[in-house]
């Protein structure tokens, strides 16, 4: 984009610095002397930054930057979608973030429920969902609360501020560090270092990754979302891998601190508790789901209503779904190009798997930004 009137923040897209960082990355990876060097990030927005700016065309060939389970919509399991769909069928007005609308349940998505006459509204924040409840005082309004811990803080804040009687929350929030543990314990993935999600770290602080790095032997670097942030973080990460230092480095100091945002953490844990749950494609993640605490049962949609998913749920029997590689892709074992359905039967307007539904899903991002062809020597 034309770089006139470049505000200070967009200095994090300066091509000269990007070139220097890419060259530094090349040197560090070469100094390790093995191939490939596998690192993983766990945030859809990091994958967007990489794909959108075409950074893989400047990464060293020996460095493999893999996206892990960093897409909250992608890891929302079918039964959870069915709960929301069932509530819509029962007559509730279901508010949801836009990305969740097209996520397939066993039989239908919330979008399908809407087409079939259900009351489903897309909201951009939890506060908007509360406004919907105020606008329809005679209806039951349920907020289908998806997203990782940063987004869960927003839900907590809204509940703590007080909500009308007709409002309740169907919590589908998830906790990313728990998923990192699962991936690290999978021997096939061989991840040597992790890039931690910047916004989540703003809330949690970077200190929570120290025991993880020590236990797994893999360094963790916290990165921001501008392309220079990502490049600089990778240089730091590869350096730590080379020196065999399983430490945590903060490359997003303008936003992330050691202990994080304490008041936000308090709000989060006052309202939510971590429980084990099934993540779509990844099976059991211990302590991976965020459920409403018992004290909040009065706004918990699962307690307020008897949600019967029998009519909308069931086993997914779908020949295409059987070929879907989302699970392997989210665990970092495969990439979207490895999937035979990618770009053909599975497209953003006709998604088969969750990774193609969400704007933070690896498949959707690769599809939008052209995938991974080798463009180094073109033009």
């Amino acid at each position, binding site marked *: *984009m*034309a*770089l*006139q*009137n470049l505000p200070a923040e967009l200095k994090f*897209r300066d*091509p000269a610095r*990007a070139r220097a960082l890419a060259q530094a990355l090349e040197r560090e990876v070469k100094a390790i002397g093995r191939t490939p060097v596998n690192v993983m990030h766990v945030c859809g927005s990091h994958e967007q930054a990489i*794909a*959108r*700016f*075409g*950074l*893989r*065309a*400047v990464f060293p060939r020996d460095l493999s930057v893999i996206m892990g389970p960093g897409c909250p919509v992608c890891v929302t399991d079918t039964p959870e979608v069915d709960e929301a769909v069932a509530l819509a069928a029962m007559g509730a007005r279901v508010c949801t973030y836009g990305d969740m609308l097209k996520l*397939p349940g066993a039989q*239908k*998505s919330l*979008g*399908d429920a809407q087409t079939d006459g259900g009351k489903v509204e*897309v909201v*951009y924040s939890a506060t*908007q969902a509360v406004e919907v409840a105020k606008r329809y005082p005679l209806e039951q309004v349920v907020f289908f609360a998806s997203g990782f811990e940063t987004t869960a803080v927003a839900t907590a804040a809204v509940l703590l501020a007080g909500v009308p009687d007709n409002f309740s929350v169907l919590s589908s929030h998830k906790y990313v560090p728990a998923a990192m543990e699962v991936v690290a314990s999978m021997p096939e993935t061989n991840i040597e270092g992790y890039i931690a999600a910047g916004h989540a770290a703003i809330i949690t602080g970077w200190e929570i990754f120290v025991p993880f790095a020590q236990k797994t032997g893999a360094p963790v670097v916290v990165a921001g979302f501008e*392309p220079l942030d990502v490049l600089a973080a990778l240089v730091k990460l590869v350096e730590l891998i080379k020196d065999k230092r399983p430490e945590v480095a903060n490359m997003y100091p303008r936003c992330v601190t050691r202990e994080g945002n304490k008041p936000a953490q308090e709000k989060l844990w006052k309202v939510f508790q971590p429980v084990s749950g099934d993540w779509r494609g990844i099976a059991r993640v211990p302590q991976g789901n965020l459920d409403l605490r018992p004290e909040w049962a009065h706004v918990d949609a699962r307690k307020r209503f008897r949600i019967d998913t029998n009519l909308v749920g069931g086993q997914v029997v779908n020949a295409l779904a059987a070929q879907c590689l989302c699970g392997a892709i989210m665990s970092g074992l495969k990439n979207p190009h490895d999937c035979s359905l990618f770009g053909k039967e599975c*497209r*953003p*307007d*006709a998604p088969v798997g969750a990774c193609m539904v969400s*704007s933070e899903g690896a498949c959707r991002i690769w*599809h*939008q*930004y*052209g*995938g991974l*062809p080798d*463009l*180094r020597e*073109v*033009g």
Partner: protein
Amino acid sequence: MSSPDRVAMKHGAGGRAMRALIEDVFLSLGGPVDGVGLSAMDDGAALRIGDQWLVVTTDSHVVQPIFFPGGDIGRLSICGTVNDLAMMGATEPLGLTCAVVIEEGFPREDLLRIRDAMKRACDEAGVTVVTGDTKVMGKGEVDGIVLNTAGFGLTRRLVRDNGLRPGDRIIVTGTVGDHGMAVMTRRRDLQIEGDLRSDVAPLNGLVRAALDAGGDAVVAMKDPTRGGLASVLHEFAQKAKVGVLLDGPSVPVNPEVLAASEILGIDPLVVANEGKAVLGVRPEAAERVLAAIRAHPLGRRAALVGTALAERPGNVILDTGLGRRLLAESDGEPLPRIC
């Protein structure tokens, strides 16, 4: 989930799905013509009349909301058709038709406002409405108003959209993303305020200047409406079987459009424009065509933004300044009812 036996919103988005619908359903209505017919799916049709071409085009307008910053459905209906004619080289339209379908209860005051905007646009373009049709449907049977305009003009110089050769340069006549983003900010659910204005304008004068300067060296031309600059570049690349390398940093974008696009996660490259043109020009003529466009009030921010390549035929490659990627062919305009 879309059902194959029903028309879905994507079929109107100007992208792949829409083209497929046209090919499957409507193409058989066409037939051989001496000139450019339905099968070419160009901006309009061109029929040979002696040593000239009669260029004809039609457009229906369903933009929502009907009044938006910088324009309205009336201005859009005139400019859209004038521009389609201009994109094929017919820069002096002979006349326009205007058919309206109005919902019962539509305020007369709004109708007059639309009429005034159409008059202004006609004056700017140097054209008049020569015939039309008026229908009214019951409340709820149509959304507000639907405007269809058709246009026709003669030209000795027909410009297609398939003439690129490796080495040719690509010019865009100004900033991209303005119209789509401006319409979006007016839609209530997005909670964004900003000084975004549609660029809707008649381009026939600008195109005339470009063609006078470049002549036969202008080998492809199209206006980036639904699907934006990206869609046009894909059409250029596919129809001419060349690759296109787009230099991201040189594409002019207004800071407000850039900001809105960051917030909404929608790329200005794929968003509709209603007052811009994209030209493919032989390299030896590129600078003088650019100068002619920049000399025109509607072309001050024109820029050279790309080059046709022999490699990767049919593909568009974006150089982001920090790296490179394929500009994936979008499924058309991300925003419904944009024009």
